[in-house]
C-alpha cells in the first residue's frame, strides 16, 4: 500500500548517494523486507547516518509534488539523508509485529533516531496501532522530537482523538513550538481547545508574560461573548499580537466581534483584501 511513497523516498535518496552508498542501502532494504533479526535491524538503523551521511535531503519539486499527491500534509522540510533512509528502512518492514518493533525501537532511540521514527509515521504498516506510542513520544521534553510528530506530519490529524489532539496543540505552546506547522490545525480546532486557550491567556496575563499570538487562530472561530473581550484586549498588544487578534475577530461567528474589528479599520481592510491572513502572519512573525 505504501509502495508509491517508498519509491518517492528511494528516488530522493538515490539523488544524494554515491554508488557504494546506493548498494549498501539496497542491501539493507532487501534485508528489511525479509523480516530481519533484531540485531540486523538495529545495526542497519545505527549505520544509516554513518554510511550515508546527514546532509540535507532537499528533495526536488517534482518529488514533493508526487509526495503531496500520496500523503497530503507530509513535509520533508528539514529532513536529512539519514532520516529518509531510516524511514524507508522502517517502511519496508513486514506489517506483522511492526507495532511491537516500533515501540521497542522508540524505547532505546537516540534523539536523531526518535525524530526519524516519528517523522515516518504516515508511511508505516499498521500505523493505526502506533497511536499509543506516538502519545508517549509527545510526553518527552525534547522539542525536536515533539515536532517530528506535531509538525508537517498528517498522522495526528488522522489518528488522534480530540483529547490527544488538544493536548498536543497546547503542549506546542509550552515547549516553544509554533502552531502553524501543525497539519490540520484549522480543521480540527474545537470549542474545548478554544476555551483552554482563553484560560491559558488569562494565566499568562496574570503572570505578566506575553500571550502567544498564534492562539487566536484556534480561538477565533469559536469566540463568543466574553471571549470577544479577550480578543479586544489583545488588540492592544504589539504588532504580531494585534494582527493575530484581528484575524481571530474576523473569524468569530459573534456579531460583537465585527464591531470590535471596526476599531482597527486598517487591519479589517487588510483582512478583507486578503493581504493579512494566517499564512502571511506566520511567515512574518516566525
Amino acid at each position, binding site marked *: 500500500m505504501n509502495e508509491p511513497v517508498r519509491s518517492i523516498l528511494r528516488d530522493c535518496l538515490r539523488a544524494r548517494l554515491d554508488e557504494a552508498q546506493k548498494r549498501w542501502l539496497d542491501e539493507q532494504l532487501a534485508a528489511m523486507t525479509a523480516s530481519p533479526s533484531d*540485531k540486523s535491524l538495529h*545495526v542497519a538503523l545505527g549505520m544509516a547516518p*554513518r554510511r550515508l551521511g546527514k546532509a540535507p535531503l532537499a528533495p526536488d519539486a517534482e518529488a514533493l509534488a508526487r509526495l503531496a499527491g500520496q500523503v497530503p500534509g507530509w513535509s520533508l522540510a528539514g*529532513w536529512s539523508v539519514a532520516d529518509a533512509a531510516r524511514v524507508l528502512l522502517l517502511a519496508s518492514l513486514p506489517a506483522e509485529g511492526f507495532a511491537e518493533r516500533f515501540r521497542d525501537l522508540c*524505547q*532505546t532511540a537516540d*534523539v*536523531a533516531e526518535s525524530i526519524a521514527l516519528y517523522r515516518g509515521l504516515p508511511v508505516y504498516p499498521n500505523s493505526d496501532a502506533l497511536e499509543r506510542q506516538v502519545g508517549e513520544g509527545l510526553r518527552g521534553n*525534547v522539542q525536536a522530537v515533539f515536532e517530528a510528530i506535531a509538525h508537517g506530519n498528517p498522522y495526528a490529524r488522522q489518528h488522534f482523538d480530540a483529547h490527544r489532539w488538544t493536548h498536543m496543540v497546547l503542549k506546542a505552546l509550552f515547549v516553544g513550538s509554533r502552531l502553524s506547522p501543525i497539519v490540520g490545525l484549522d480543521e480540527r480546532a474545537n470549542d474545548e481547545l478554544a476555551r483552554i486557550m482563553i484560560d491559558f491567556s488569562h494565566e499568562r496575563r496574570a503572570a505578566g508574560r506575553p500571550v502567544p499570538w498564534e492562539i487566536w487562530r484556534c480561538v477565533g472561530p469559536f469566540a463568543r461573548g466574553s471571549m470577544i473581550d479577550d480578543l479586544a484586549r489583545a488588540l492592544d498588544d504589539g504588532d504580531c499580537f494585534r494582527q493575530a487578534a484581528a484575524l481571530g475577530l474576523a473569524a468569530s461567528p459573534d456579531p460583537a466581534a465585527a464591531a470590535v474589528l471596526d476599531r482597527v479599520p486598517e487591519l479589517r481592510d487588510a483582512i478583507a483584501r486578503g493581504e493579512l491572513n494566517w499564512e502571511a502572519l506566520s511567515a512574518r512573525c516566525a
Partner: protein
Amino acid sequence: MMFIDPHAHMVSRTTDDYEAMAAAGVVAVIEPAFWLGQPRTNVGSYLDYLSTLVGFERFRAGQFGIRHYCTIGLNSKEANNEALAEGVMELIPRFALKEGVVAIGEIGYDEQTALEDKYFRLQLDLAKELDLPVMIHTPHRDKKRGTSRSMDVCIEHGLDPAKVVIDHNNEETVRECLDRGFWAAFSIYPSTKMGNERMVEILRQYGARQIIVDSACDWGISEPLGVAKTARLALQRGIPEEQVRLACYQNALDAYGQSGQMKEADWLNPVDIDQRALYEGNSILRGGREPRVEKLANRRSMDDLIIK
C-alpha cells in the same frame, strides 16, 4: 580558548553547571557510562540510563551551547553482578552505534576480580569489532598494578594504544602510559584523584603530548570547571599556550574523534538540521560570534533575588 571536558557525568549535574561550563569556554563534553553511586539492581534501569545518555542529556547540553557525546559500556563495579552484567552486555551493541557515541567505556578494573576481567575483555573485543576507541577507568586501589594490567590486556586483545585512553592517571602511572603509546588522561577531582596544581607540574615535566585533562565531575563533590580552571592555572604558571590547548582540547578531540562521531565542525559550524533540532545556536563560524569565555553566571549568589 575552547575546552573539551572528555569525562563528565552530566546527568548528575544541574543546568547551572552547564551554564558555568559554557561561560568558561567548554564547547563539548564526553559522558562515560558509569554506575550511579549505588549498584543498579536490574538491566531495565541500565537501559533507561543508556537511553538518557544518547537522548535527553544530549539535548539538555545543547540548550546551553555545549555538545554532548558519550561512551557506552559496562563499568567494572557492576560487572561483578553476573546476572546484571549478562543483560547489559546484550544492550551494548545496540547502543554503541548511536549518534555521538565516541568510545566503549568507561571499562576496566575496580577490585580486579575474575568477573571484572571477563567483561573487560569481552568489551575490548567489541570495541575492536565496531572499530571504536576505548576509555579505561583505572582502579582506585592497587592503582599502579591495575593500570599496568589494563594496558597489558588491551595489547593482548590486539588494540592499538592510539585508540585507548587510560583515565585517572597520577604521578605514579603516567610514565608507563606515555611510554607504551596510550593516551594518558587525568581527572581533576578534588581530594581524591588529581589536583590541578599537581596537574600543572605533570604538564611541566612531561609536556602535553598524549595528555588529556578532564573533570570526571559526577554526583560527588567534584568540579565541572576542572578543565577550564586547570587551563587557566597552567597558563598563569607559565605552561605554553599550545600545550594547554593540546591537553585541554585537541588531544581529546584527536583520541575520541577516531570514532568518526566527534568533529570540530559540530560546534564551530553545525549543520542547519542539527542546529535546529539539538543545539542552541552558539556556533562560532556561522554566527560570527566569539566563543564565550570567562563570563561566569552567578546564579547562586543571594545578591540576585529576583526569579522571573
